[in-house]
């Protein structure tokens, strides 16, 4: 079959020493980044992008490295969720609910290994899904004209607040802010400067890295400084004893259906644009709870409560790559960052990517398979290594994170102005977290604003100013309808589930997946 042949070719691309080494480094770094609370996949990837650029890596190795980091973070997030009851990143939030109770019962090792295996299953299923679904989507993608792309972007923004967002006005504001930031600079279509106020630094627009690193990494440092000394900060005694690392076979058998269900749900959640790994883990957990029914003891250390969300978030990470590669529309916050990196490397993801750069795509997918096995090896037997890293006090860790953010940006631009903008975003990020304003829409706005506007104007140029082209084709209408539903639904869903309480039970997660 054509696909399997292409995949075989991809393995040939991936199995070079450089790519294998990069995959290993990416998996290791990703697990580390995911494990450390305060660093998530999106800021981890964001911090590494300037490094990758400065190293002069070509597109395929760069993508292999960063996507390995992404996958790795999905594995790593569970470590601090289980051991410290602090989610390593937002997708790992659900793992706290059963993982930490299990650890308290002395079953930390089992929790870690079940979740590691569940992560592997989720990622494995999702990568196969990617292999088969992405080329299909490419065929569908050829039906996409500028009007349909515009509708797709509207869908991405509308659903971005996510099912877990409680205040759609804030999500709308965040998206509007992100888009406004994207307008700064010289307009691509007409060449006129917009919102530059005569300042030469603004003519080039705002580099997408500044809001990402500023709002995610720097604001985290500020939050840590603020939280220090508070009763519920990270000073509860960490669980040092891990216990058995290999789970009993009976537990594996019990959790296998959860892993399967979580993987499928997570993959679907990941494929939907705007919804990411967090939604994957959330949906997997809640639906698993319903599926198991009375037999389960979720919230008190049920291993299924650990297996399902972990399979879900890894599957969603893989799923998020599908729209990113096939359509050029990011499936999650982190894939939005990856997308920006690809565009900066002059590779346009989208339908033509599979025809123009098959090496890149299939090499990446093959590297993901290999990386998955590497991650399984790193995470199940060697999990003790990472849990030891978690004991590094945050007063060494967070300043290091802050400094790496600074030098990453400075190494790229050598501009003090950019550093000041980044600091401003850091402060803004802190304010946003206080006010529960989601930050992912801001980032998506900055990244996609230009594309979104370009498609809108192209559509209207084609129709000569006739607005009806925007809802002309059934595809566009369908997408816009889903967008409206996706935007309005959380308002109704929040009546049934109290997300605020759920979030307050763990920690503040207005970060991305």
């Amino acid at each position, binding site marked *: 079959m054509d696909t399997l042949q292409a995949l075989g070719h991809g393995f040939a691309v991936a199995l070079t020493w450089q790519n294998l080494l990069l995959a290993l480094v990416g998996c290791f770094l990703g697990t580390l980044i995911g494990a450390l609370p305060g660093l998530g996949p999106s800021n981890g990837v964001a911090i590494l992008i300037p490094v990758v650029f400065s190293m002069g890596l070509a597109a395929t190795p760069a993508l292999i490295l960063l996507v390995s980091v992404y996958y790795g973070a999905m594995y790593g997030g569970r470590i601090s969720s289980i051991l410290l009851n602090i989610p390593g990143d937002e997708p790992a939030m659900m793992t706290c609910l059963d993982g930490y109770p299990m650890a308290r019962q002395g079953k930390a090792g089992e929790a870690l290994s079940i979740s590691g295996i569940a992560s592997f299953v989720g990622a494995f299923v999702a990568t196969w899904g990617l292999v088969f679904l992405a080329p299909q989507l490419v065929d569908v993608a050829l039906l996409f004209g500028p009007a349909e792309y515009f509708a797709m972007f509207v869908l991405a923004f509308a659903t971005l607040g996510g099912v877990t967002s409680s205040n759609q006005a804030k999500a709308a504001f965040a998206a509007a802010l992100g888009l406004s930031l994207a307008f700064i600079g010289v307009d691509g279509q007409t060449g006129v400067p917009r919102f530059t106020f005569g300042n030469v630094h603004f003519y080039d627009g705002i580099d997408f890295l500044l809001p990402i690193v500023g709002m995610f990494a720097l604001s985290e440092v500020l939050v840590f400084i603020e939280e220090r000394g508070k009763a519920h900060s990270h000073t509860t005694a960490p669980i040092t004893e891990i216990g058995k690392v290999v789970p009993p076979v009976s537990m594996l058998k019990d959790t296998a259906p959860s892993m399967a269900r979580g993987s499928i749900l997570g993959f679907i959640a990941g494929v939907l644009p705007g919804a990411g790994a967090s939604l994957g883990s959330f949906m997997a957990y809640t639906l698993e709870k319903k599926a198991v029914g009375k037999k389960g003891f979720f919230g008190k250390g049920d291993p299924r409560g650990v297996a399902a969300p972990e399979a879900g978030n890894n599957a969603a990470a893989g799923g998020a790559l599908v729209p990113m590669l096939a359509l050029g529309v990011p499936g999650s916050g982190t894939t939005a960052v990856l997308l920006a990196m690809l565009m900066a490397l002059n590779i346009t993801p989208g339908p033509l990517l599979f025809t123009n750069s098959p090496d890149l795509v299939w090499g990446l997918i093959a590297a993901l398979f290999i990386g998955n096995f590497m991650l399984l090896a790193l995470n199940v037997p060697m999990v003790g290594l990472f849990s030891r890293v978690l004991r590094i006090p945050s*007063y*060494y860790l967070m300043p290091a994170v802050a*400094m790496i953010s600074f030098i990453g940006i400075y190494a790229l631009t050598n501009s003090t102005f950019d550093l000041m903008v980044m600091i401003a975003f850091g402060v803004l990020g802190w304010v946003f977290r206080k006010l529960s304003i989601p930050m992912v829409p801001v980032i998506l706005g900055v990244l996609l604003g230009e594309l979104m506007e370009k498609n809108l104007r192209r559509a209207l140029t084609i129709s000569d100013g006739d607005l009806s082209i925007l809802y002309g084709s059934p595809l566009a209408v369908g997408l816009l309808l889903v967008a409206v539903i996706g935007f309005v639904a959380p308002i109704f869903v929040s009546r049934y589930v109290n997300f605020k309480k759920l979030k307050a039970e763990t920690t503040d997660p207005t970060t991305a997946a």
Partner: protein
Amino acid sequence: MSDRIFGGTVLAVALLMMWATTLIEESFIQDPLGPKAFPMVIAVVMAIAAVVMIIKPDANPEWPTLRKNLELVATVGVLVAYAQLLPIAGFVVSTIFATGFLCWRLGASPRQSVQGGVLIAIGIYGLFQHVLGLNLARGPWGF
């Protein structure tokens, strides 16, 4: 209440944006939408979101005490100073001070902060400049 204040600020920003949009020049290459239309739409969306925030504010978040606020302001000040000093004093020296300060504010003892600052600065320098080949800020001492 915080939401209302924030909503008010956002409304002001949105109105400012609408005014700034009218300042955008038209060019002779024109597409039917023009460079002003989409920004105007987004500014209106922002204004509507602001009004909703004012009308239906969420519960107040927990704002830090005065002392904490001062600490946060001091931290931001140090970061700003760091950004300004980087091209002047070079990477290693600036980073030692900035990292030391951050470690100290995050709970390390003064001695640990100095140790942490020096270790982290030199560690990052070694890793990024020599192993990865990135270009860190160069000071008058060559590092």
